[in-house]
């Protein structure tokens, strides 16, 4: 479904990704791990069509990724990019006007599930509730690819837990591909089908998590420490 062919991305003199070959299939929840600056966000932005590779190509369903890929990809960035004067409901309504694939009923269902008040203004939301809002907006789009850059970072354990449960409940694991980057391995360990490790811009390993457990009796953390230490 998603394919990186010998992809290199340079910013000025710095190489963010180097010669990455990678294939990702639909119907999987895939974790992307690596230290800060390893190239995780660069990889996501390449799939989202927000930046272009300096060399090689990124394809989605056999088509080269361009900015227009937005119709197939829902991208949750690390940053908060919402209008602070909107309420939760207004933000949801605004998103519904921006994306034809946005499912308002699903958004309402997830909002209720996450216990987020519809009338609170975005500027008055706690960090945890802004995290929840982002999840609502990302998961409500009926697109084949969901990209989530650090959906759990900086959130307290209860919020992280409700986000993970939200993912299990609302991702269509038969048809959607979820790629999420995180430092919170413990929280997502049980929901990942595959895990990808990158280090200094290079792809180090790409594993099926259950096979890793079966073949090597290793969890993701042990596997990571063998890579990063």
């Amino acid at each position: 479904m998603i394919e990186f062919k010998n992809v290199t991305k340079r910013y000025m003199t710095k190489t963010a990704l180097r010669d990455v070959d990678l294939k990702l299939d639909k119907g999987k929840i895939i974790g992307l791990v690596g230290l800060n600056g390893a190239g995780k966000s660069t990889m996501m932005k390449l799939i989202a069509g927000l930046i272009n590779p300096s060399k090689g190509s990124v394809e989605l369903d056999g088509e080269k990724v361009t900015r227009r890929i937005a119709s197939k990809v829902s991208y949750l960035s690390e940053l908060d990019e919402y209008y602070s004067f909107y309420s939760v409901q207004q933000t949801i309504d605004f998103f519904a006007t921006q994306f034809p694939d946005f499912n308002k009923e699903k958004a309402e269902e997830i909002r209720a599930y996450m216990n987020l008040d519809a009338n609170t203004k975005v500027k008055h939301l706690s960090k945890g509730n802004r995290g929840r809002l982002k999840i609502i907006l990302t998961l409500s789009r009926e697109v084949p690819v969901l990209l989530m850059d650090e959906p759990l970072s900086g959130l307290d354990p209860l919020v992280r837990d409700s986000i993970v449960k939200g993912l299990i409940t609302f991702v269509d694991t038969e048809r959607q591909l979820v790629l999420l980057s995180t430092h919170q391995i413990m929280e997502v360990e049980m929901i990942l089908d595959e895990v990808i490790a990158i280090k200094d811009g290079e792809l180090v390993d790409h594993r099926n998590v259950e096979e890793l457990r079966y073949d090597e009796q290793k969890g993701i953390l042990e596997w990571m420490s063998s890579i990063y230490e």
Partner: protein
Amino acid sequence: MTDTFQSSQPIYLQLADRLNRQIVSGELKPGDKLPSVRETAVSSKVNPNTVQRTYRELEASGIVESRRGQGTFVTENEDILLSIREKLKQEQIQNFIQVMHDMGYQNEEIKEGLQTYLEGGARHD
């Protein structure tokens, strides 16, 4: 089901094991409907694909049956239920004996210890 899984063993096998135990203990009865894949995924906090795989494995071994459009049900086949009951027993005994042997206990000591323990019955419960 709030207890967690070991991260170093395949989750689909741990989940299958858990369901087998529930069937043997009678918590899940012959003919009972299992929760849907999604429900089990949420309550155990694991990937729905993993639950799907567990259900497939259990179905392949005949412990559960999936009925089109209705869901997945615990088998009512006596032979299969008895064999799973026997299998879990053997597994537990094997584990126990392995641990005892690793610590250096001899078969005679183990037998004697077991007998005394079981005959002492309620006092140890």
